[in-house]
């Protein structure tokens, strides 16, 4: 999953939220699982 600038990702387990300020090819993980794109 490409992480696009400005997109926000949320961890469904702990609720942590990240905002991407520089995109990359990797995946964002938190609490041992993939983070979800916040809509």
């Amino acid at each position, binding site marked *: 999953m490409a992480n696009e*600038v400005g997109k926000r990702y949320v961890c469904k387990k702990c609720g942590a939220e990240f905002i991407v*300020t*520089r995109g990359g090819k990797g995946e964002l993980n938190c609490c041992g699982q993939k983070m979800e794109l916040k809509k």
Partner: protein
Amino acid sequence: MNTNDFLSIATAICPDRDFLVFEGQRQSFAETNARVNRLAHALRKLSVQQGDRIGMLQVNCPQYVEAYFAAAKLGAIFVPLNFRAKADELSYMIGNAEISVLFVGTRYLDMVDDMLPKFSTVTACICVDDKRDEKLFYEDLLESESPDEVTSEIDDDDITILMYTAGTTGRPKGVPLKHSGFVSYVLENVEPANPEFEEGNLLTVPLYHVAGMQAMLAGVYGGRTLVLMRQFEVKEWMKTIQDEGASRAMLVPTMLKWVVDDPDFQKYDLSSLKVITYGAAPMPFEVIKKAIQELPWVRFINAFGQTETASTITTLGPEDHVLEGTDEEIDKKLKRLTSSIGRPLPDVEVKIVDEKGDPLPPNEVGEILAKGPRIMTGYWGDEEKTAQVITPDGWLRTGDKGSMDEEGYIYLAGRGDDMIIRGGENISPEEIENALHSYPKIEEAAVIGIPDPEWGQEPRAVVVLKKGEAATAEEIMEYCRSRLAGFKRPRSIIFVDALPRNAMGKVLKKELREKLGN
């Protein structure tokens, strides 16, 4: 996180988006960030260190925003100064803050030059908008510096702004505001910059006021285009909304009244407006009612707060400005529009207490107290005044009277020191003012308490009639008889051409009491 992150996040997400628009000039987030860095390097060369105070005496302009962030990048403390302050008041603030570098707009230079010799702390005075002999010039400073990022070790609880408030009583008090306070506000209440969504925010509230600063910082974090106006002028405001397609604006009640009352109001296309936030002074019911009618597509938000709370702590939201629903729902909304400041924001606690500090049950009037990460820890260098407003367990005494209903809506009942006490009964001046404002011949009115040998105090109304109207004191008092409980009616009416107001449009009741209170 600190306020520098607002700019760096927005710059990373939407670098090429217009950030600051001012009198035909446009600069992007990336351009602004580069200029901020240049200025920060220049200030460092002027020996500005963490904790130093950087003053700004100028109307709204891009340099104002840049200077704030340059100070923030260095961990210095930004001191916005009221450009309407008289010389002695300005002198007090510069001395009290021990300002080391002072940015000055050209029109204020002469006044500043007269007083500077007595301040040993001021090591540099920088002209913001024009070159003057022997003075440092803003653009020259930037020209010779690198745009490379400037970083400092900043703690979230470091002070970022020292803002002076006179409120409507007494001499200016310095309010230190922390990075963490503004961070708390934006994280709870503002959507961060979005590369797929743009909006323009017209900023006319002065940046020396906490409402202006909050709007600016929220705008930065939100990746909004900030359209700056030097000062509010009603036709220019409407034209700018139209030309820029701005979707957000913040107005004080006086400004909103001027807009909806302007004879050319219908000539401007204000359809781009989505949100108008108002505050900083009580909103007369007749004004917001007219605004809702004239701008039915706009979502209105009443924002209540103080400098001491780093601005907004409660809001009466858009849904409370839409007068639809059952008769009962509409009545409730009308009551809220008349005197409610809404409900606390998520990061704020609010309670209503009696004179002993004990919480009051719903609908009983007492003092409004607030607590949370945005509340100041104390006045700058004034432990005595701090002890008067911050309780031992960290609650801020706002000085405003009010009540809270069962749904958590707070209703203002006036400033503690404006409250009229007649025969032991509290009378809220706002209630009487609302009644007066509903009289067709009255443009505006303010109510003060005057000494009375029998009752302690009596209400006196100070009235400005509409242009071309004539009225007698008797007819106004007769009107009040139909609207107010007997003990609340004004016992005297004084007619004036204008009410004394501060720069934010708040009526200066202390001045009214001094001039007309006997």
